[in-house]
């Protein structure tokens, strides 16, 4: 897997297939990016579980916090890691002890750990790094274009009607659109200053 540039089909197949998402590092503070993403994904019908040992006893949009992945007690499809790059490996190690194994490890915008990714991929998991699932969902469904964002997709098909709390709009038929090569290069340079 080329972790510098993901195919839309790869991202779409992940967002279309996962149902249960554990968000590690979720924050109950409503101005944190993890809060925005958690709420957005919950509204799109994903079964969201907030994981943060510092907030056990509280809940995030009605979902109670758990201290660790082990405490979830039911199968999870995807782990969305809202921690910076240096804290990724322990989370992946813990994820790989779960049974059944999760299907996807997703590292948030700004986070990347190639060694952790390789370990997860060797165990058969799919990995996405340095992306936000909310932004990717918004981009592929074209919801995000409401904010003038380059979705990098084109389509001559009528979009499915946006349906509150359902994932229909993610199946918009599209081809690749305007690229953002300069931004991709800048992101790579920032993560790998050499």
């Amino acid at each position, binding site marked *: 897997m080329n972790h510098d540039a993901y195919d839309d089909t790869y991202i779409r197949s992940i967002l279309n297939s996962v149902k249960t998402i554990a968000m590690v590092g979720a924050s109950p503070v409503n101005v944190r990016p993890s809060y*925005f993403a958690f*709420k957005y994904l919950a509204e799109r019908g994903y079964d969201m579980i907030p994981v943060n040992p510092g907030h056990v006893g509280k809940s995030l949009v009605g979902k109670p916090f758990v201290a660790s992945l082990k405490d979830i007690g039911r199968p999870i499809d995807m782990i969305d890691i809202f921690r910076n790059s240096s804290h990724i490996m322990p989370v992946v190690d813990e994820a790989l002890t779960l049974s059944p194994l999760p299907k996807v490890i997703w590292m948030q915008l700004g986070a990347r750990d190639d060694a952790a990714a390789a370990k997860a991929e060797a165990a058969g998991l799919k990995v996405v790094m340095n992306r936000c699932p909310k932004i990717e969902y918004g981009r592929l469904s074209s919801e995000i274009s409401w904010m*003038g*964002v380059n979705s990098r997709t084109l*389509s001559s098909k009528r979009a499915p009607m946006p349906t509150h709390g359902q994932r229909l709009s993610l199946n918009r038929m599209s081809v690749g*659109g*305007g690229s*953002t090569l300069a931004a991709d290069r*800048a992101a790579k340079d920032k993560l790998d200053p050499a």
Partner: protein
Amino acid sequence: MTDNSPGFATLAIHAGAQPDPTTGARTTPIYQTTSFVFNDADHAASLFGLQAFGNIYTRIGNPTNAVLEERVAALEGGTAALAVASGHAAQVVVLQQLLKPGDEFVAARKLYGGSINQFTHAFKSFGWNVAWADPDEPETFERAVTPRTKAIFIESIANPSGSITDIEAVAAVARKAGVPLIVDNTLASPYLIRPIEHGADIVVHSLTKFLAGHGNSLGGIIVDAGTFDWSKDGKYPMLSEPRPEYHGIKLQETFGNFAFAIACRVLGLRDLGPALSPFNAFMILTGIETLPLRMQKHCENSKAIAEWLSTHPAVAAVNYAGLANNKYNQLARKYAPKGAGAVFTFSLKGGYDAGVNLVSKLKLFSHLANVGDTRSLVIHPASTTHSQLDDAAKTKAGAGPDIVRLSIGIEDKEDLIADLDQAMS
């Protein structure tokens, strides 16, 4: 067409637009409305808190304008864009995100006269201080940088002189200074030059010109390249620090590589208010569909007319970068290989009076203060757009007393040459 990189003409027609989900309308509808209903109180709260994507009020965003924004972002290779009421509004909104009172920015001396006025007078009253540099000598930008410098501003093809700026050389200065490079790409349009590929961090346009192309609508746009790290040294608190306007969210942390476009929208457009009318957005979008075809014809006509003028006995000099002997021809070949644009100047041996006389005798060229129309346009900058500058500054801006500026349209070039010929004889 490959799946990941459709060509420019395909993007000019399709980017941002898809059939309307409700009606199936194929062209982009004009959402001529001030406001949009919320699903419920919770939806309203998440929209206002920037937690959900969606429409609230046309001063913040509008679905017709959003198509225009995505279209231009795609054409420029940026991550996102924000459309505003005019090119000048785009410049104010951009600098408001970057400068605090007492801060500075370095700008090329060769700029549209209105921009020189805006920077010198209006921005001074905000406490934003401009330092001028010579775009023909990129090292003058480096010399003008101080610890208070927050941005560098240039035009890709300068108005009125038609000179080409060495964008990569100025981008290197900006990178070294740790400040973003803003490029006004109005005169080139992304068809001729894509500044982001040469190191620009922000691109602005007056959409009023070639992008719209028809001279019937004002508009401006800001494109975020997604390349600048706003949080590395605390110099750009609008993007890196908790915003009190939004309960303490940090925009770069939340929106990643399109945070600058979001800042312009939610801190600039929302509070300063220069919103683009959805009707104008529709007119401009319609224009953009034919941008590649028009630019080809604009450049073909311009080259023919510049060559013809060079041989005319009343003409002292023709400043068109597309001519092989022009000072900027080397830069034109590098940055604008498809053509050196359609705005350029020439000087008349008869000086100021000959300029005024020419303008009054033309029958097909329109005498007015715009560029980038389908129609050919002419102006005598010294007595109009640049009249507020003193003689030395006029000459430095490429608008000396003997200079006439043309904006070549897409009529038949033979008719344009005949009109110039009769007016100069």
